[in-house]
Structure formats: structure tokens, C-alpha cells
């Protein structure tokens, strides 16, 4: 069960929005989150909410299989797909819906890792609050937007024009393909102006490593040019490249350059952490240092193979993000 699940789910019951319905999609009847959902549904009877248990089998993507029964029951035109570990402010739906202008196909948001505990949790926060947030902003700035499935808002009618959620079941990154499909229909992918908080809690280093190797392999197969540019966004790799260039062109001491570069980079990332998480701690900066040191080996591990383990399934990612079990 996700850390802080009850608080995360409760935030969706407390939305300041005139009329909305909540549809919870749970794949297994033994899922320990079921009593939590049932309790919340009882506590907030004024919120229209539904629970579906069971998964469809339309492809290898377990998230789409899980979502489909609930998606079919959704009665409204605008749909927000959100993971259960996302915690949102009261005006979240209102803000997202306001961003969904007529020319916009899908609204997504960057993810701020909050309350990471243990080394794994802090590394996860450091990853989300620095590299992931910066990379996402950069991609949107240079006109290569992509969608993060933690939270994505779209119109059902537009999704149906691309074949509905069902067609996305064959891809590992249904979020990325949602953005691509909307773009092919002529609609924009827009980034919401506030990050959405992902409650991280306790997390092992092994889980952190495995999760981001999986993400890396997905990105590699989904959009290789972007993935192979990623090391330029690591403090040490970009610093080493700069140090070599400055040393050979102007005779600057490589070590001095590297220290200066990492210092500036660290200050910029500290600001980013403060902006994303709302606070800056020594623990967060220590995790940032460790993450930067392991970033390149982590990336190389992602390069090494195309297999991922996701929700107990060993999947092989094919070019373009298609996936086979």
C-alpha cells in the first residue's frame, strides 16, 4: 500500500469544484487499500464516488488494464487520471480545468516529491525535485512537451478520437502516447503552473534504483534523442565536459572548474528543491549529492537492457514504447 494513502485520497474528496465524481480503480479484491477507500467513501457521502474492482486485459500495460473498468463508468466529459500517491490542494481540479482551453488536448503537471523518508525516499525526492522537474520544464520550453501519468487531464471525446484508453494498453508509457495522440489530433499538451505533490514516505534504495531504471528504459525506447541527452543534465557529467572544454581552450584548472560548476549547479538545484517541496533541508541536499554521484551509473544501467519489472510482470519494451510480456 502507498505511504500516506488515506491523506492522498482524502485530498480528492475535498476538492473545491462544483460537480465531480471520483472513480477508484482497484485491480485485486485483496488489495489492502480497499478498506481505506471504503471508509473515505462513507465519510464523504456528499461526493459522488464509485469503486471498481478488477482489471480488463487489453494489453501488457497493467495501469491501463486497471483503469479501463472505471474509465467506462466515468460519466463526465473531462477526465483526470491520477495515481493514488498524489496529494493535491483543494483548488487543484479547478485550476487544471481552467488550463484545459479549447485548443488544449491534455494538461499534465510536474511532480514534487514530498516527505521522503530514509535514504531511498530522499533520493526519490531529490530525483523528482531536481532532475525530473528541470528536464520537464526544459522539454516544454523547447517545444518537446510530454505527459506524466501521475496526473493528466483530458476530454473523453478527444481520447475516443484516438481510439480511447484501450488503444494505449499496448504501450508501456501510456502517458507519453496520450500526449503524442493529442498532438497528432492538433491539440496542445500543457504543463500546469503548479507541481503536484507525490507523497513518498519510506522508500528503499533498491526500489528507487529499480523504479528509475524502469523509467529510463521507457524513455530510451519512447524518445531516444531526449534520453541520450540526459547526461548533460547531471552536475558531474556536464561539469566534466565543461572542465575538459575549458582546460583545453583556456587552460582553466579542470578541478577548479568542476568544483565551481557543481557549486553553481547545487545552488540552482537547492532553489528548485525549495520551490518544489516548499522547504530545503540538509538531508535533501545530502541526498542530492549522492544522487548526482550515482546519476551516470544509474543511466548506464537503463541503457544496458530493454527489460523492466513492473507490478510483478517482466516486460520487454520494444522500439516506440510498445511492450510485450
Amino acid at each position, binding site marked *: 500500500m502507498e505511504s500516506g494513502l488515506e491523506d492522498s485520497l482524502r485530498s480528492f474528496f475535498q476538492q473545491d469544484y462544483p460537480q465531480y465524481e471520483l472513480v477508484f480503480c482497484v485491480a485485486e479484491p485483496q488489495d489492502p487499500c480497499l478498506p481505506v477507500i471504503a471508509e473515505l467513501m462513507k465519510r464523504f457521502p456528499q461526493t459522488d464516488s464509485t469503486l471498481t474492482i478488477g482489471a480488463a486485459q487489453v494489453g501488457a500495460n497493467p495501469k491501463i488494464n486497471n483503469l479501463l473498468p472505471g474509465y467506462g463508468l466515468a460519466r463526465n466529459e473531462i477526465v483526470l487520471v491520477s495515481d493514488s500517491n498524489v496529494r493535491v490542494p483543494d483548488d487543484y481540479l479547478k485550476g487544471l480545468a481552467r488550463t484545459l482551453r479549447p485548443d488544449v488536448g491534455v494538461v499534465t503537471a510536474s511532480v514534487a516529491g514530498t516527505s521522503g523518508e530514509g535514504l531511498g525516499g530522499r533520493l526519490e525526492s531529490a530525483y523528482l525535485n531536481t532532475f525530473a522537474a528541470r528536464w520537464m520544464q526544459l522539454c516544454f520550453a523547447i517545444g518537446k512537451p510530454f505527459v506524466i501519468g501521475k496526473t493528466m487531464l483530458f476530454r473523453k471525446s478527444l481520447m*475516443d*478520437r*484516438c*481510439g480511447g484508453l484501450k*488503444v494505449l494498453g*499496448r*504501450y508501456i508509457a501510456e502517458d507519453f*502516447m496520450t500526449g*503524442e*495522440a493529442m*498532438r*497528432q*489530433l*492538433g491539440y496542445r499538451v500543457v504543463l500546469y503552473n503548479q507541481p503536484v505533490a507525490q507523497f513518498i514516505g519510506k522508500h528503499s534504495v533498491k526500489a528507487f534504483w529499480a523504479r528509475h531504471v524502469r523509467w529510463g528504459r521507457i524513455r530510451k525506447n519512447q524518445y*531516444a*534523442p531526449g534520453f541520450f541527452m540526459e547526461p548533460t543534465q547531471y552536475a558531474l557529467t556536464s561539469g566534466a565536459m565543461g572542465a575538459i572544454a575549458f582546460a583545453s581552450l583556456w587552460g582553466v584548472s579542470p578541478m577548479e572548474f568542476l568544483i565551481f560548476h557543481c557549486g553553481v549547479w547545487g545552488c540552482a538545484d537547492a532553489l528548485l528543491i525549495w520551490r518544489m517541496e516548499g522547504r530545503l533541508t540538509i538531508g535533501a541536499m545530502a541526498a542530492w549529492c549522492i544522487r548526482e554521484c550515482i546519476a551516470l551509473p544509474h543511466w548506464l544501467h537503463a541503457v544496458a537492457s530493454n527489460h523492466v519489472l513492473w507490478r510483478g510482470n517482466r516486460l520487454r519494451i*520494444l*522500439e*516506440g*514504447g*510498445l511492450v510485450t510480456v
Partner: protein
Amino acid sequence: MFLGDFHVHSTFSDGKLTIPQVVDLYGKHGFGAIAITDHLCEEQTVIGKATAYIGCTLTPATFPIYMEIIRSEAKRAWDLYKMVVIPGYELSKNSISNHRSAHIVALNVTDYIPADADPFDLAKKVKAQGALAIAAHPVWTRKLEAQTYYLWDRRDEFKNAFDAWEVASGPFIFDEVARTKLPKIAVSDLHIPRHINAWKTLFTCERHPEAILEAIKKQQIDFRFFNAQQTLVREIQHVASQPMLPPHVGLWARKRDSRNVANTRSIR
């Protein structure tokens, strides 16, 4: 009587318009049928891999969404413009040598076919799924681009393999093809909106995919040059001469077929 264009690219390969934009462009000009035929390049060659890398070809990953969007747009095109939209692709075998390059337009496709096989086998695979195989721009295209002579070099061998050969592409007529008895078709090879000013195929059959494909097979077609600018001028003059009528496009949509045909020039 209606005009059709069966070689059109979208943003799924190297076109500049999305599929809905293509549908609206042709629909507003009164066309009766179009086929979306994005490039589907080889997967095993360096050129094919590079094309996939820059996103200028259909891939096994993009194909399902491509087909879904064409399906939904076909419905919209029919409801809005009474225009038929046929799914297709252009199997593109590209080589440094013009004489080893071949493009095959497939119309009314259902399945993805890797373009790596021999052109003869590709044509057979296209037909096996009930689609039409057309030899695309088989001779010099009069443009500064790589040429695709492979099929034309072997036209005797391939004459029964294809349902039609492009006799005109864009604003150019291919005299070499026109002089033969090969079955023909005229298309625009549209990549950008102004490419709509091009040779087109004229049909007298029912507006139905099967009837249209049958007309191509049986060569119950004619060819016309379409000029969108002339159509626009006519429309403006027509409205200006009847100031009492509201400038409502729908009023003229009913007469659009005959008007477009009137604004064309024939090569037969």
C-alpha cells in the same frame, strides 16, 4: 462527380498538417474522397532507422493510433463534408541510388507491413489485405529530391503487380507513364497546404470506399488539375453578385462538386 486525392501526408510522417487539418482542407474544397498515406519506411536500413529516429515515418508503435485517428476522422469527414477518407500508407524503400529506390502507395490498408521486403512481395502483401497497390512517382518527379526509379526500370516485370501507376504528381504530368497502357492515377503527394493545387483523379462512382477502389481498378476515372485559388475567386464573385444572400458556406457546398470540376483542366 467528385475529385479524389490518394497520396496525402500528415504529421505522422513528413507532412505539415495533422490528419484533422488535412480532412478540413480537402473537405472545405469540396473533395469527395482522399486517402491518408504517410510514409512507412524500412526498419532494417540506416536510412529507415534515421527516418524513424527523427519521427518522419510510421512505426509499429505509431500505427495503431494512426489508424484510430483516421477511423474517427473518416466518420467526421463523412458527417461534415460527405467526404470519404481511406486509410493508407506509402511503403518507402529509400536508397542512395535512385534506381534502387521505390515507393508504393497502399490504399485501404488494415495491417502494418514492414517495408523491408522486395517491392514485388510488398505489392503482394498489400493486395493480400484487400488493399490497392499503386506505384508512386515512378519516373523523374521534376523536383529537387531523391528519385524512385526502381519500379519504372522493371515496369514490364511489375505491370500486373500494381493496380495503378501515378501519371501525375503535384503539378507535373509524367509523359512517360501517360504514353503507356498501364493503369493510371493522378495525385498531389500533398505535404503542405499549397500542394493541393495539383492533378487529381475525377470519379463518377458512388462515394463509398469500395466503389472508389473499384473505379481505380477498372480505370473508370479521369484526371483534372485542381486550383484552389480559382475556386476561391469564383466563390467570392458568386457571393458578391447576389448580395441579398447570406455569405453562408453551406449554401454553396451543394454545388461545390460541379464547381470544382469546372475549375479544373483535363489531361485526357
